[in-house]
């Protein structure tokens, strides 16, 4: 008998995702897949799910292994060659600390929830796509940790990121964002993470971090970025397939999906407030301004490219998008001004932008920087000249939904803080914007449970009543937080550069990490 012909990759994919599936005979379908009906999404034919990549496990593993090999070769040579001394400045790593503390734990959360989808979606096609994404996300979490662990030997702020993700005030922003997504049903999660995060906003998150790495001498992170890029394009395709699949299955799905787009655009956009300041303030060598990135990756690519396509299904651009567009002139400045005042309680450091940096900011933001923000930095510099450093002597009011301090201003009035509130069951709740207020009023029962860091400190749940108590509970070590100038990291850097040029001496790791 002739040996069976080897199947093509397409045939293997079909065999894996379709032929290995079977019709249930011992249990009802709704018992085996109990979570795909309560959200109100109607699916008539799961086989209509199209996975344009048609990956099989063996092909997937082969690609990923090759990418890992390349990444770890770069990491090894970087570590052996003291590559960290090639950074533009150690303050660049503030961006990476934020990434490690804020984003890496989200990769792991994504891994977990896609694994859940890989079990609980009814169709074999979407289950297999979710399985691949689940493995990608786990790989991303691991490779990010390995990439940045090189720096942990020499620099502050990277030693307790997992612990801090669950505790520190600004990290409750990404954490609560993802908690919101994973506690939703499977279809809302697909729109929240698969579509809004991985498609609508992904370029605004990843391109700034990875380009920032390449502009600032961070070869490992840049290599990680390349290694993740092909996965990310698969995730974008999955997100787009998910939304099209839902919209095509039943017209009743359209208003449900629209409301999720409205909610998750604003949730994601508020999370990206942290990225905006990273681009405009944290990077020693600038890549592009937040305003430029927003115009290119969101206004042009999404509002100009994606939404006209989705209009075919009756989908309109997200609610409150006009506020995000108007905010591009002020967002990053307001956020970094806030981080400057509160960095005594952060796992990164801040400083007054240099003269050159302020000149760049004025060029990028001709309508706002010199008028509104330069005077504030001038006043902060005068405090420094008098031997002080401005830190906010208190705790800020937080938004109940996004959990960012209520620092954003009224649409059209950049000098007045936006204050919104809603009463629900006799209690008052505060919001930073119309977008967050709208999200709360849709599902107040969900957001009344918010673990707001400021309120938790006042309830005595964060290590004690004083600032040092709370910082100890955050596991912040000396040099992790506060001002950049004169910081442990900065002085170590200067010593390393002085000694390595004089004696070619390798730097000693900083104690405590």
């Amino acid at each position, binding site marked *: 008998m002739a040996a069976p012909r080897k199947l093509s990759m397409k045939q293997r994919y079909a065999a894996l995702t379709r032929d290995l599936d079977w019709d249930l005979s011992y249990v009802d379908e709704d018992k085996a897949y*109990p*979570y795909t009906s*309560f*959200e*109100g999404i109607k699916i008539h034919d799961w086989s209509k799910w199209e996975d344009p990549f048609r990956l099989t496990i063996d092909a997937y593993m082969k690609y990923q292994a090759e990418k890992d090999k390349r990444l770890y070769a770069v990491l090894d040579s970087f570590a052996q060659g003291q590559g960290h001394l090639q950074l533009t400045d150690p303050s660049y790593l503030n961006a990476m600390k934020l990434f490690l503390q804020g984003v890496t734990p989200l990769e792991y959360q994504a891994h977990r929830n896609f694994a859940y989808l890989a079990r609980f979606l009814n169709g074999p096609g979407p289950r297999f796509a979710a399985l691949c994404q689940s493995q990608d996300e786990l790989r991303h979490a691991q490779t990010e940790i390995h990439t940045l662990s090189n720096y942990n030997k020499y620099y502050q702020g990277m030693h307790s990121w997992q612990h801090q993700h669950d505790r520190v005030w600004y990290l409750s922003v990404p954490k609560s964002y993802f908690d919101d997504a994973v506690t939703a*049903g499977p279809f809302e999660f697909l729109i929240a993470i698969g579509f809004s995060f991985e498609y609508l906003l992904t370029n605004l998150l990843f391109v700034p971090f990875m380009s920032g790495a390449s502009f600032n001498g961070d070869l490992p992170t840049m290599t990680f970025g390349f290694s993740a890029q092909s996965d990310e394009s698969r995730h974008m395709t999955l997100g787009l397939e998910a939304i099209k699949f839902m919209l095509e299955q039943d017209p009743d799905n359209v208003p449900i999906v629209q409301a999720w787009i409205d909610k998750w655009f604003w949730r994601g956009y508020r999370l990206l407030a942290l990225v905006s300041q990273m681009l405009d303030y944290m990077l020693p060598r600038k890549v592009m301004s937040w305003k430029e990135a927003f115009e290119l990756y969101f206004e042009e690519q999404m509002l100009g490219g994606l939404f006209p396509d989705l209009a075919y299904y009756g989908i309109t651009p997200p609610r409150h998008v006009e506020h995000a567009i108007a905010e591009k002139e002020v967002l990053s400045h*307001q956020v970094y*001004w*806030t981080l400057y*005042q509160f960095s005594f309680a952060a796992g990164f450091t801040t400083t007054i932008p240099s003269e050159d940096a302020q000149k760049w900011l004025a060029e990028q933001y001709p309508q706002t920087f010199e008028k*509104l923000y330069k005077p*504030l930095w001038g*006043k902060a510099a*005068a*405090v420094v000249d*008098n031997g002080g450093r*401005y*830190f*906010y*002597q*208190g*705790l*800020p*009011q*937080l938004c109940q939904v996004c959990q960012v*301090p*209520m*620092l954003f201003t009224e649409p059209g009035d950049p*000098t*007045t*803080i936006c*204050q919104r*509130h809603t009463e629900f*069951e006799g*209690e*008052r*709740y*505060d919001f930073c914007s119309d977008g967050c207020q709208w999200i709360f009023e*849709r*599902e107040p*029962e*969900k957001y*009344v*449970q*918010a*673990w*707001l860091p*400021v*309120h938790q400190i*006042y*309830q005595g749940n964060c290590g004690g009543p004083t600032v040092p108590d709370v910082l100890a509970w955050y596991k912040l070590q000396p040099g992790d937080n506060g001002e950049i100038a004169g910081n442990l990291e900065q002085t170590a850097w200067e010593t390393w550069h002085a000694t390595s040029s004089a004696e070619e001496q390798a730097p000693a790791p900083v104690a405590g990490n």
Partner: protein
Amino acid sequence: MAVRSIGEYKFPSRSRQELYGDDQLVHLWWKGNLWFCAAACFRAPKAMSWNDFVGGMVNPLFSCDPEFDAATTTFTWTVDDKPISPAGDESLEALGVGHKSLITCVAA
């Protein structure tokens, strides 16, 4: 609209007043002064007098602004958008300050 869920979905607020005993959360906003990036949140006794609030909470915070002078800077005040004219001895509660109220001041 209520949360769509797989079962009953009812949880208490994680910031409800009873968690603070005889105290409550109070927000303080110096409107129009961008030196302070956001309004502040304090935990204050309901029975705290206005003078104690100003001396113990308002002034220490506002003193971060080098242009602020507790002796000469004067303000007009509102509580949740209602004007108040505090004399000094009234309690926060008597001035209409409730849990998570917003006390706003504008420099005169």
